[in-house]
């Protein structure tokens, strides 16, 4: 066979639109997923069962069902139960964010638990409240330990964004499919999509290495 990227280059505009769509859903899910994950993780860490039990149910539910099924469910089933339509972006964002929240909650919980109790003692002996100790003393140290795991989550979120194509949200894979069907050249179209993903993700990973090095300056 012969590689022919002509139709890919002819449709650069479509790929740019797709890339913008991917970045948009990535940003939404990264912020929603990781911040909701922190709340759920604090609930999992809590000894108060009114916080612990709902957080545990949430984590188990979203960890043990496929994201793709969640996205499809939010898109097709939710509007039947609730009196409003839901956009492809909203459905996909919900599915990916909630799933990421469940996984990152366990990262946060583990990170917080890994901090020695002496740090709590030191903070409390100064007269800090629980929230002050968590924000000033515990979380900054825990985040440093969690950074590699959270970076993996971010990469996972970026790649999960392709699942939004299942509800016809315009992102890179969706546009790749479109280009592939124009001249029936799936190899070139999907290769282009893969390359674009790599170009986005590789610097992201390098940036996280840089962050890890910076955070280690107190050692």
């Amino acid at each position, binding site marked *: 066979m012969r590689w022919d990227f002509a139709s890919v280059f002819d449709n650069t505009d479509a790929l740019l639109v797709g890339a913008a769509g991917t970045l948009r859903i990535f940003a939404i899910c990264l912020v929603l997923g990781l911040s909701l994950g922190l709340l759920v993780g604090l609930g999992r860490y809590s000894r108060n069962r009114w916080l612990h039990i709902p957080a545990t149910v949430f984590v188990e539910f979203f960890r043990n069902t496929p994201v793709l099924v969640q996205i499809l469910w939010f898109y097709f089933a939710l509007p039947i139960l609730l009196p409003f339509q839901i956009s492809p972006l909203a459905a996909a964002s919900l599915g990916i964010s909630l799933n990421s929240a469940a996984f990152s909650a366990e990262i946060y919980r583990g990170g917080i638990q890994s901090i020695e109790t*002496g*740090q709590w*003692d*030191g*903070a*409390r*002996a*100064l*007269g*800090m*409240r*629980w929230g*002050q100790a968590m924000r*000033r*003393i515990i979380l*900054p*140290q825990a985040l*440093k330990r969690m950074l590699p795991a959270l970076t993996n989550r971010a990469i996972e979120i970026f790649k999960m964004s392709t699942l939004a194509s299942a509800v016809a949200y315009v992102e890179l894979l969706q546009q790749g499919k479109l280009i592939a069907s124009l001249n029936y050249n799936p190899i070139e179209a999907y290769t282009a999509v893969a390359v674009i993903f790599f170009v986005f993700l590789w610097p992201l990973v390098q940036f996280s290495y840089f962050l890890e090095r910076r955070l280690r*300056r*107190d*050692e």
Partner: protein
Amino acid sequence: MTILKVTGLTKRFGTTDVLRGIDLEVARGERIAILGASGSGKSTLLRCLNFMERPGGGTIALDGQVLGREGKSGERTYRENELIQVRQRVGMVFQQFNLFPHMTAIGNVMEGLRTVRGMPKPEAEARARKELARVGLAEKAETYPAHLSGGQKQRVAIARALAMDPEMLLFDEPTSALDPELVGEVLAVILALAEEGRTMMLVTHELGFAYHVATRIIFLADGAIHEQGSPDEVLKNPKKERTRAFLASHKQFSF
């Protein structure tokens, strides 16, 4: 004048009674050294006094004010705000220092002033520098704990406690985690604080230091005060058999 009054203090971990009814009155300016074998409840007693551990039974009064209130089941309940006030008035220094590793020495000393007191940064920084200078570490202000020796870490921890202007200081085995050659510098700082007339309670194994610095010695055994008195009384002429045995085992290899 009494600053702290403890009545019938008990504490139980699981099925073990760690403290079995401690009665103790601390006057302002007193320096009390608490001695006892491991497991006698020394650290637990100290940790109950600033509520790092919740007392099981009994009452603690600070400056004449009994803390907490009687709950329905007879157990005392304590409000978070109340305990936060107490901890600011009763400072604590730990065996393992418990410095915050992600902050520099001065960051550690400023932290309570900034976060708990809400003091503006320039003011907190000036105060922290003063406290670091007091423990002889002015030039280590920008150093992270990982680059400090054990003795320096403990001195930063003392400066951190002092910055909050506590009316009373609790030292929980402040030199037990240190290499022998670093013990002296920490004891010198504590001695200087004693000479200022500060109220302090000190759990320690350094009998010689306790003899020199304390105004009263308390010997704890099985979660109760077994013997107490002046350093001369308890350390030189102990009346009780267990106190004698404890002192003998600590002086076994002295020469």
